[in-house]
């Protein structure tokens, strides 16, 4: 024992690498005689371990504090009646969820999210696929139409704008009188102006329109990239067999692009569940008129930061979480088809 104690500092000092804990563990695990011979690999091991720990420490810590901890807390806050910044939370079990079940405004919001979940991907993908097909295969002999690059550049632009900025922009475009971009020509034609945002029957469709407006370009570019990797010989062969553009699209493009379409579908579905800024910024009463445009995220924000019902808002968040998980699981299961290899 005294022997080893005397030797240990020698192996430990020369490389400055080994940390205290590492040294102790190794001294315990290995016979004293092997100490000198294994010094070099041990040093490397220790350096490697310190490198790994050093590189992971900051990101993991930040992630644990700001992401993991809040998500974990959300589930427990949902079981409390926490109201107000000063009040302390009291455990109420599933009471929030029971109340939520009878909250008609929340279910209106859920309904809007559900409608968006179906319509936003459907419209966006249908429009984007047609444009991508025209741009890539709608022109000469399977080539793109003239100026296809220009169209791609223009269509994509809304994607780089912030949703909040787009919302303010369309608030002006949709103005209900002669100062609105869309209503001015209607009035000039002698028609009744449309209350794009003020008519409860129309407002939701205006929201959907803005969302589609912003999303289409991204998917045109995405699908174009997918279509570019489809071998041109396939189109040539089909064309020689007398297939028209419609058949080309449904028999070749769509099946070969299915993976990309599936990814797009999931992205848009999640976007539909997370709609917030368009509704919050653009609509009157932040989700109005008369709750006709409200969505789950808006109700969560309103309950948490305007009514200070933290427990109740967290319960809504938990419901949104389960909708998101259910959607992702269903989308992966339903849309998985035989992959066409090419």
């Amino acid at each position, binding site marked *: 024992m005294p022997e080893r104690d005397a030797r240990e500092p020698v192996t430990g000092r020369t490389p400055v690498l080994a940390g205290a804990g590492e040294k102790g563990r190794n001294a315990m695990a290995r016979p004293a005689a092997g100490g000198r011979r294994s010094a070099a690999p041990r040093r490397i091991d220790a350096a490697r371990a310190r490198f790994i720990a050093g590189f992971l420490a900051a990101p993991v810590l930040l992630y644990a504090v700001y992401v993991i*901890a809040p998500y974990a807390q959300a589930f427990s806050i949902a079981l409390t009646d926490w109201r107000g910044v000063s009040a302390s939370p009291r455990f109420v079990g599933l009471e929030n969820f029971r109340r939520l079940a009878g909250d008609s405004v929340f279910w209106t919001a859920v309904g809007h999210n559900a409608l968006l979940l179906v319509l936003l991907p459907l419209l966006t993908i249908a429009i984007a696929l047609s444009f991508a097909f025209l741009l890539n295969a709608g022109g000469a002999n399977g080539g793109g139409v003239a100026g296809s690059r220009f169209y791609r550049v223009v269509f994509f632009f809304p994607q780089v704008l912030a949703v909040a900025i787009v919302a303010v922009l369309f608030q002006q475009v949709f103005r209900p009188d002669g100062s609105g971009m869309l209503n001015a020509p209607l009035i000039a034609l002698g028609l009744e102006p449309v209350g794009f945002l003020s008519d409860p029957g129309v407002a939701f469709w205006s929201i959907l329109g803005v969302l589609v407006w912003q999303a289409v370009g991204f998917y045109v570019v995405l699908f174009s990239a997918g279509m570019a990797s489809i071998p041109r010989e396939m189109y040539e062969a089909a064309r020689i067999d007398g297939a028209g553009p419609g058949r080309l699209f449904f028999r070749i493009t769509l099946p070969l692009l299915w993976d990309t379409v599936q990814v797009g579908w999931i992205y848009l579905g999640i976007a539909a569940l997370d709609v917030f800024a368009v509704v919050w910024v653009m609509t009157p009463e932040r989700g109005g008129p008369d709750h006709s445009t409200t969505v789950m995220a808006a109700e969560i924000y309103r309950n948490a930061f305007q009514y200070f019902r933290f427990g109740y808002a967290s319960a809504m968040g938990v419901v949104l979480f389960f909708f998101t998980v259910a959607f992702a699981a269903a989308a992966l299961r339903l849309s998985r088809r035989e992959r066409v290899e090419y």
Partner: protein
Amino acid sequence: MVSQAGKVTLGRSASRERRRARLGPLSGLSHAALVVWTALVTVPIAWTFLASVKSEDEIFGSAWSLPASLRWDNWARAFENAHVGRYMLNSLVVVALSTTGTMLLGSMAAYVLARYRFRGNRAIYLLFVSGLAFPVYLALTPLFFVVQNMGRLPLVGPLIGLDTYGGLVLVYIAYSLPFTIFFLSAFFRTLPEAVAEAAFVDGASHARVFFQIMLPMARPGIVSITIFNVLGQWNQYQIPLVLLSGQAQDKWVLTQGIAAISTAAGYDADWSALFAALSMAILPMLVVYTVFQRQIQAGLTAGALK
């Protein structure tokens, strides 16, 4: 890309007549559809720019009238009185810090998780990637209190609490890590082993191999994901809304500021300044996009194409 473009032009000239005969009507229709969508995208933006140099009366008169004179004072008013200049500067400061931090921490973690085998590797990777599936709205309330509590820490507290740049920056970094790590670790896995091994034999440290060899080799991936993060963080609205309250208006980011101006315009009725503010928010994006559109398209679609 280049060879394909060449093939397209070649094919086009060779079969122009045949195509005319077959695709004539479709081609006309498709061009019409493309032109209509181009108008749908460009006209609202152009209309906003036009309104930004109109007087109040002209804005309320007819939406499509041309301004009698170009009123650039709207822009000056938006920049000064409506603080758009201030908001823009705030956004610049926050995004510069948060994207730098995201890329540094994200690439470090991604590299270690992609190229080192150790116990817990898989668990940590899954922990990060699972963050992609969670809706941020679930975390909003606790996040607010986490940041509030961070503000009570000794020394650093005043820099990273509520209503501070630091708090917002750290939250941006944390919420950008899942996608950054997911994307970059896939990228690091594809890099060849040989160069790094040679460097290790020459006695380079792990950190040195990362910063001087692997990081430069991963450049294309780094560029894509940097663009993705810059745009995502620049356009963020929900998180600043929660973390930068009404008492910290001097720290508001651009999205927050513009949205607030639109709400306030109902009362102050400085509509022309609102249009100018809106144009000021769009213009830099338009310029940056025009210059870097290829890289931006690649960066934003990179995640979906994997």
